[in-house]
């Protein structure tokens, strides 16, 4: 089988090419078969490769396909590596990717750009698998930029609207800003290690002493982390992710929740031994993660667009993952990537199912940009009616499968004891406490906010009375191609806990031992877990769980009877409410203090420097002078012999004077 594994990423690429070139003519049936078939084929090969890797003595399957861009001392092969880390991630990408492709068949059924959609989605899977499996940082960067491209294309999928193109552009450029960090980080690592192949870097890193203070590796890892903040939507580069919800909902589930946005965490896990050498970076990672988690959660408290709530929730959960990494919990952070992939994909697809249902009742023409008012609930021009939580309500009766699967996901994300979300979040909080209790406190407050806004979302959508009877009457459960993925993701959400039930509660947190060959690369010894005790773990978990459940109950009771209670509370704190509702006005600030000055700068350089100084003074002025002096000289060319004779005589006189003097 080994010789077919290159098809794992390439198969989806072929699908993308087919759907892009001939998909429209071939018809929806062919697009569906190819679009799903290539991802399924990739998944099956990935499973085979995963077990082949498990069979290897060192749990590493290295596949080399020749040289890509070698010159001078630089050598970058086309190589794939399957190890526990990349193998697990590969299965998540191909597995959840396949479910979301399946879901899209139903969700995108009526869309004109069906072939284009599947072409982009296939292309995304190709780039994401390249990112995961690439043996060198450069090949990872191929995937890294490539998923950014697909994200851009899919956010801008409804390109004929006003806002989707803006959102796509914003996503791409914010990511590119982060990518500058990755490029600089790679340059530093190359100058330090003489190679960009991950395994070679890690081997060398194993021989190095941790940096005291700010050194080369601290700089390199900080730069790489800048890239991670872009791709994984952390402060201050998180701004693009909420806007990215302009894309179709399956895109939000696959790219902007389950896979692409976790690339930053994946990259740090990949280079864990190098990051471990840079304690300052680890502190920065932990604090940025914690701050982002809290910051985004507060915004999520008041949003009324169901996808926006989930988007801020994603930003916040990604913050948790970084918090875990920063606390040296590479396994814990990655475990949260794993569990989050299941439950957040499920939440988004559930939301998509709700939007799908509401859409058929909503009077607007287009799933993504209806602006017309619903019947009863107050309207907000910025929220399309089918995504407006304030217009939902009581959907439990209409959509039982969506309701139950969403419930499972909601319990997981709020960390209800026994769920996979509980397991991964608890491990992170525990390690955060060991690093610094303040980090733990931030994490717990965030957990409370999370529980509140998730119950708010759930209650507003499924429970209580319908606030838009017209939409409610037309709402219906989604077709099987959509509910089947929901059910499978729910199963995954429940089972994910198997991989990492914490040791303190009788589990074995097996993911840690499983990932160890990749995250420690055989050289580092257990960096944590030795200090704490099971009593401490129990105490911390009790506090956070009780507070979380209390907040969840608070969320439920605030919204179970509709909007009145929360509206009254908002009226008590008008300033705070407005601040949160407007997301701290960060977008406005960026436009005013960053983008406008840059454009101004460009204009000044062009009109002042290029046109006036260089061209005016430097080029045209000498030209004009030449012309004027030419005109003046021409006056002397009178054509009269006696004038010439006179000037000759004068000249001769001057010469004589000079020489005889």
């Amino acid at each position: 089988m080994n010789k077919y594994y290159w098809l794992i990423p390439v198969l989806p690429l072929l699908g993308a090419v087919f759907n892009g070139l001939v998909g429209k003519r071939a018809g929806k049936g062919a697009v569906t078969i190819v679009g799903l078939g290539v991802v399924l084929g990739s998944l099956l090969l990935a499973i085979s490769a995963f077990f082949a890797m498990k069979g290897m003595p060192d749990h590493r399957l290295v596949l080399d396909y020749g040289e890509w861009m070698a010159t001078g001392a630089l050598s970058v092969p086309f190589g794939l590596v399957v190890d526990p880390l990349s193998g697990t991630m590969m299965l998540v990408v191909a597995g959840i990717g396949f479910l979301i492709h399946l879901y899209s068949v139903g969700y995108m059924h009526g869309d004109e750009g069906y072939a284009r959609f599947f072409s982009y989605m296939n292309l995304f899977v190709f780039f994401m698998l390249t990112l995961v499996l690439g043996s060198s940082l450069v090949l990872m960067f191929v995937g890294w930029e490539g998923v950014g491209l697909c994200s851009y294309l899919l956010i801008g999928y409804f390109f004929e609207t006003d806002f989707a193109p803006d959102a796509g552009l914003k996503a791409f450029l914010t990511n590119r800003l982060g990518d500058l960090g990755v490029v600089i980080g790679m340059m530093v690592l190359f100058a330090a290690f003489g190679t960009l192949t991950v395994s070679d870097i890690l081997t060398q890193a194993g021989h190095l002493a941790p940096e005291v203070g700010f050194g080369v590796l601290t700089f390199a890892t900080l730069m790489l982390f800048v890239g991670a903040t872009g791709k994984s939507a952390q402060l201050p580069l998180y701004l693009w992710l909420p806007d990215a919800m302009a894309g179709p909902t399956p895109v939000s589930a696959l790219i902007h929740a389950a896979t692409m946005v976790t690339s930053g965490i994946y990259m740090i896990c990949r280079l864990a031994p190098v990051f471990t050498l840079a304690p300052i970076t680890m502190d920065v990672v932990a604090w940025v993660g914690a701050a982002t988690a809290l910051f985004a959660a507060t915004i999520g408290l008041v949003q009324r667009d169901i996808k926006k709530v989930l988007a801020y929730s994603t930003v916040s959960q990604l913050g948790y993952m970084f918090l875990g990494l920063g606390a040296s919990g590479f396994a814990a952070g990655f475990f949260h990537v794993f569990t989050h992939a299941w439950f957040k994909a499920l939440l988004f697809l559930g939301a998509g199912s709700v939007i799908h249902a509401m859409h058929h009742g909503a009077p607007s023409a287009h799933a993504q940009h209806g602006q017309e008012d619903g019947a009863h609930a107050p309207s907000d021009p910025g929220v399309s009616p089918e995504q407006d939580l304030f217009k939902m309500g009581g959907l439990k009766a209409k959509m039982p499968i969506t309701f139950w699967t969403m419930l499972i996901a909601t319990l997981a994300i709020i960390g209800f004891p026994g769920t996979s979300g509980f397991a991964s979040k608890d491990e992170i909080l525990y390690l955060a406490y060991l690093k610094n209790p303040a980090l733990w406190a931030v994490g717990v407050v965030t957990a409370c906010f999370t529980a509140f806004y998730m119950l708010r979302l759930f209650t507003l959508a499924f429970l209580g009375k319908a606030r838009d009877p017209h939409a409610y009457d037309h709402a219906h459960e989604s077709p099987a191609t959509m509910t089947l993925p929901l059910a499978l993701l729910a199963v995954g959400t429940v089972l994910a806990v198997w991989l990492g039930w914490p040791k303190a509660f009788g589990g074995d947190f097996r993911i840690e031992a499983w990932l160890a060959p990749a995250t420690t690369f055989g050289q580092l010894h257990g960096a944590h877990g030795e200090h704490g005790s099971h009593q401490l773990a129990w105490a911390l978990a009790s506090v956070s769980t009780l507070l979380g459940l209390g907040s969840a109950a608070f969320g439920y009771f605030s919204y179970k009877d509709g909007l009145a209670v929360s509206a009254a509370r908002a009226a008590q704190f008008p300033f705070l409410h407005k601040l949160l509702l407007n997301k701290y006005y960060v977008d406005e600030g960026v436009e005013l203090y960053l983008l406008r000055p840059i454009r101004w700068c460009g204009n000044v350089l062009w009109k002042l420097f290029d046109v006036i100084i260089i061209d005016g003074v430097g080029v045209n002025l000498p030209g004009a002078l030449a012309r004027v002096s030419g005109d003046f000289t021409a006056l002397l060319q009178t054509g009269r012999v006696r004038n010439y004779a006179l000037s000759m005589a004068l000249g001769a006189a001057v010469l004589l004077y000079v020489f005889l003097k």
Partner: protein
Amino acid sequence: MTWLNSHPLTFLVFAPAILGFLILALPHALGRLSRMLGFMGALAFFVLSLAWLLGHGGGADISERAPWFTLVGLPVDYALGVDGLNLWLVILTTFLVPLTMLGTWDSLKDRIGTFAAMFLLLETGMLGALMAQDLFFFYLFWEAMLIPMYFMIGVWGGDERRYAANKFFLFTLSGSLLWLVALLYLANKAGGFNPAIMGQAASALPFGVQCWLFIAFAVAFAIKVPLFPLHTWLPDAHVQAPTAGSVILAGVLLKLGGYGFIRFAIPMFPQAALHYAQPIAILSVIAIIYGALVAMVQRDIKKLVAYSSVSHMGFVMLGLASFTVIGTQGAMLQMLNHGISTGALFLLVGMLYDRAHTRMIADFGGVAVKMPVFTTFFLIVTLSSIGLPLTNGFVGEFWILNGTFLSGFSWGRLYASIATSGVLLGAVYMLWMFKRVFWGPENKDEDSGTHHLHTDLNAREIAVMLPIVVLIIWMGVHPRTFVAVSEAPVTALLKEAKAPAPRTFVLKPAVHEAPAVPAAQAPAPREGHAAEPAAHEVHR
């Protein structure tokens, strides 16, 4: 045929001009025939250049040299040669000429036969300059190139074509006059125009004189590149030139500036070149950022692309100034990249202009709805231009940045880091423009550009764009095809020039370990420097 076998380069250089003069002799009424004749000829030259230059033992050097005449007692050689440094630039030229002819088939309406002839004369000028191995011979071609281009802009250009043509001509000419003085001075010292002998003669001169000579050479080449602040002729020339002129200007003429550095200025005056590496690098970094910022605020798509050239060519110059194999090879590749990508952008802008008769960004919006095929091609070329991995643009920029970062000069790391921002800014101006032109609601305004778009690309236009897309991917996935031949000459050149050894970081090993430090970062003789340049740079 035996003459051809021994003089393939002579044929390649002069056959276009001969065909061009033949076409000029044809009556005006036969314009369509002339155009077809010109295209078929150019296509044949492309095929021949591939067959002869690539078929010839896989990149081995080919040269022709014979004494020619004496100029004020100095012998001038008739010397043409193709080696690793110019092989792909020559092929790029023979490739772009027929492609551009086909791509702009219907763009011009008057004197199309004469235009085809000018094009062929220009091809001779460009090929001659690329192949000339004698400096006076090179100078002749260098100046001869200006004339057909002057006419292309001045006769077939836009509304302000006369200003643009004059500016182009005088700007370039003023640079080369200074250079001619330096050339004659040095030829006098060396007793001829052979670059190798002139280089030896130069090395015997006092360092200050070498510096002045280098500056004279460098200014002439830098105007062509164009390097900030000598770039202002470029936007005017591009905007006023007909599409075909812009493509060739960007695709080949600018390359001759960079080529001049690597072929003549650096090898002939290595000490001076090293001495001025930092000023050149500073100007390059300014060009990268300045070009991008100014491109960002342009309202005319063509002017935007023109300023993007300033930014991209800044990368080329930065790579050359790094004096590392990686950076120089990156510059070599980036020259080809820029020829393909920017040439393609000008072609695409021309296709849009032919339909809409406007190039103002604000006149468009929602073009993707009306021209999906065109949009797809434009997007792919845009991605290449902004250096997305797996396209050609990425490899060139990545090598240049890495090479500069590793550069033996103390400023390398800083400038490489600053230049990285060009990668972001490139995406800003290209994708912002792309969004405004192609995405968004369809611009339904009666006199908008979008309104006048009725047809998507036709078969001819698709046939022009397909090879470009193939090349964009090919160069991005297998760049070795295009830079393998220059690796050895570039390495040798840098060794001759005594480029400083690359600077690497020295990491601190763990205390309890034996000092088993890998070869790449062996303990350095001087602090912060690699043990040996060869160990780090040449071992491939």
